[in-house]
């Protein structure tokens, strides 16, 4: 228990909370209490914004809009219909969520600036409505006279009780955020944000994750807006406008994009900066801007990151968690029915800007065999893997997996049906441990979801099981000694093996390995070949893309050779090596010797 407190940022956080709470309880005057209440409201707003901006990595400019809508719903329902907090508050959350659901589907498809501008556009339309629809909203003056929070007759009329109530809700907000992000589901966001390609190839539905983040941010925004309306008793177009959005962005970046403590620290610092500089009168916003800019430049990972670094500098790094002591083999996805070939590609064709990267490729794979895919660079090997795993959609042709047509199916569905892969260029999350990188293989397949994450009590069993399966996969690749290290610091060859382990942890029926031996020395290559053979012994079909024919000779039962997007030879390794077309592709015209089993021998 003690070590839990001493790790990471928890101790300073607890101390700071205690200090603030003591200040609020014993020393605060009514004005301070009001300021602290505002801090709590902004903290809620930022906690919500972290989902879409920090966790999903999308710069939404609609957070102030959700805030404003929440405020207006509270204002309108409370003043026009006299409803109490228990009615207005849920409605104020439901309204923004509804808007997020409606606009989310088209808007979340947009990338980067297009997404930002679309969310900005939505915000401006809502702002116009609030100003123009003055019968209901009070126009530019807004709606005054919003009553205090009324909990079924218990009216929170004094500032102290409002302060406690708001911070009570902030704690609830923190808990929900903690629940969403602490387990396997939270790590799925991490992977999606860092590497979308790897995320889809591991069965994560990116559209779902982005949608969930957007909805959550809307809910928090609405809740914060409703509280603001009660606290300042008026709601006006200011609650919706760009200035508020800028404040929210600034708080999020300065506190720490993905950290719960960051939301609170960011909100408290920014609110107080303005208060402290008020004595400067006309110059106060200039000083505020300069101060915020300095924090932005000096603390690259936000205030939380800065505190953590300082702690690490003063007291050294806290010891990391231990690897799980038990491991568990990944269950293999069951086939849907009878089939002849585990994979059949027929006439697969794909062109890029007029150049045919794949030109009528056809081949089949049997259960449990190891097939080497060879060919000169640029012959279409990786492109073929990309088509099979659903990252590219072919122009023509068909791919059948276990008797089902998977042509054009999205990558995450293909992955869930049992095709796993590694990449030519490593796709791992550098700041997660090797174990957690491997464990992420389970997030899509085991259906880590929002509701499951929120309702998890105690340890996240999904994450624990995923880590046990990851441990088993790590054992199979012989990398257990480094599983707790962050991937970014591992040697190249080890990282490649982490990727293979991650593919195996999905429990695949077919695994596609893109140059797995690159960066390994001869001894390690032989070792890896032996390990890959055990996959096949377990019934997993393996396709290995490789230039290194020494490695393949020890491994593959069959070779398929591509050249300029076409299959030019397929069959037993010896026959393929002696095939004139293969020799010509590898060595050029005039060569007549079979390709030696080492790539590049003279």
């Amino acid at each position: 228990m003690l070590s839990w407190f001493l790790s990471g940022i928890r101790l300073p956080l607890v101390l700071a909370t205690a200090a603030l709470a003591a200040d609020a309880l014993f020393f605060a005057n009514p004005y301070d209490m009001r300021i602290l209440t505002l801090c709590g409201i902004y903290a809620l707003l930022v906690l919500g914004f972290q989902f879409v901006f920090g966790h999903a990595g999308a710069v939404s400019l609609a957070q102030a809009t959700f805030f404003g809508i929440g405020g207006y719903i509270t204002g309108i329902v409370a003043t026009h219909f006299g409803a109490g907090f228990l009615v207005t508050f849920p409605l104020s959350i439901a309204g923004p969520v509804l808007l997020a659901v409606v606009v989310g589907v088209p808007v979340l498809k947009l990338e980067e600036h297009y997404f930002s501008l679309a969310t900005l556009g939505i915000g401006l339309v809502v702002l116009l409505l609030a100003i123009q629809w003055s019968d209901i909203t009070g126009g530019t003056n807004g709606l005054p006279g919003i009553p205090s929070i009324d909990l079924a007759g218990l009216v929170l009329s004094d500032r102290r009780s409002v302060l406690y109530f708001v911070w009570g809700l902030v704690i609830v907000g923190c808990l929900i955020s903690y629940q969403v992000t602490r387990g396997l589901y939270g790590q799925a966001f991490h992977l999606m944000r860092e590497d979308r390609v790897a995320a889809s190839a591991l069965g994560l539905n990116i559209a779902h994750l982005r949608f969930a983040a957007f909805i959550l941010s809307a809910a928090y925004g609405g809740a914060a807006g409703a509280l603001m309306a009660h606290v300042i008793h008026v709601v006006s177009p200011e609650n919706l406008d760009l200035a508020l959005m800028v404040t929210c962005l600034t708080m999020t970046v300065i506190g720490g994009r993905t950290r719960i403590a960051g939301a609170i620290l960011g909100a408290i610092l920014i609110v107080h900066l303005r208060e402290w500089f008020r004595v400067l009168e006309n110059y106060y916003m200039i000083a505020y801007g300069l101060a915020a800019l300095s924090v932005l430049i000096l603390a690259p990972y936000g205030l939380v990151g800065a505190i953590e670094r300082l702690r690490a500098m003063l007291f050294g790094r806290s010891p990391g968690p231990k690897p799980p002591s038990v491991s568990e083999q990944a269950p293999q996805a069951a086939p849907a029915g009878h089939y002849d070939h585990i994979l059949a590609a027929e006439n697969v064709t794909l062109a890029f800007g007029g150049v045919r990267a794949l030109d009528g490729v056809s081949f089949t794979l049997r259960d449990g065999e190891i097939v080497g895919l060879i060919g000169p660079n640029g012959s279409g090997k990786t492109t073929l893997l990309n088509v099979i795993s659903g990252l590219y959609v072919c122009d023509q042709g068909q791919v059948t997996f276990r008797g089902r047509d998977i042509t054009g199916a999205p990558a995450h569905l293909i992955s869930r049906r049992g095709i796993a892969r590694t990449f030519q260029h490593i796709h791992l999350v550098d700041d997660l441990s090797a174990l957690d990188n491997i464990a992420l293989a389970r997030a899509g397949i085991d259906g880590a979801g929002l509701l499951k994450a929120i309702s998890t009590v105690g340890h996240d069993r999904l994450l624990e099981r995923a880590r046990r399966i990851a441990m088993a996969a790590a054992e199979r690749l012989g990398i257990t000694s480094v599983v707790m290290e962050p991937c970014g610091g591992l040697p190249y060859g080890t990282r490649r093996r982490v990727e293979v382990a991650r593919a195996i942890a999905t429990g695949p029926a077919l695994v596609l390995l893109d140059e797995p031996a690159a960066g390994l020395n001869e001894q390690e290559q032989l070792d890896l070949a032996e390990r890959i053979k055990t996959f096949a012994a377990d019934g997993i079909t393996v396709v290995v893309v490789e230039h290194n024919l020494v490695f393949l000779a020890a491994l593959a039962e069959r070779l398929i050779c591509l050249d300029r997007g076409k299959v030019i030879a397929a069959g037993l390794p010896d026959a393929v090596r002696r095939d004139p077309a293969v020799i010509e592709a590898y060595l050029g015209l005039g060569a007549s010797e079979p390709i030696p089993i080492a790539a590049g021998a003279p």
Partner: protein
Amino acid sequence: MSGLLEIDKLCVWYGPVFALKDATLSVGSGEAVALIGANGAGKSTLFKSIVGFLRPKSGALRFLDRDVTGLRTEQRIRLGVGYSPEGRRVFPGLTVRENLEVAVFAGKAERARRVDRAFSLFPQLATRQEALGWQLSGGQQQMLAIGRALMGQPRLLLLDEPSLGLSPKLADEVLAGIRGIVKDGTSVLLAEQNVGKALACCDRAYVLEVGKIVLAGTAAALRDTEEVKRAFLGG
């Protein structure tokens, strides 16, 4: 013969792991030198340190008898280094011609002359002058990257895996072309996985293994070394 490029005990770290440890090597004027080693052995790291993408932790880096460790990338290039990086990195939104032109620091006539020379070196590029960088095939991008590296008429050409993406025939042509480049007065440092071919076209070679130089010598001598045969030539 005074070295064109002199590297002494260069160490490069990525966070807590080293990528290069005490690498010492030199390239003289008028010679072609090969760097051989597996993927991840540190060849690209060495190149990136030479052009200044990476900051070495310790060690010396001298070019034309001048300490270049304090110079920015573009200053080192302008001293006479040409760099064709791993992964090609052509400018995707610029046309083939523009990709070449940006790298020439000379008058208009001279610019046209050098671009034409690149086109005569790679006739395939001449037919696609107005195509954008991203539209080229991998092999064409590789030719463009090499052509671009030659635009500044460098004293030293750094070629990081130039045969990647080229058909074997073309790869042979490019590697054979290295002799011509050397004859024209440009030294070449070549990183290449295809050891046999690299040794065939270079004068000397260094063998890198996990960030360390484990062997050095003339190409002919290395070809007969047991370690090289076993590790790379499969013999």
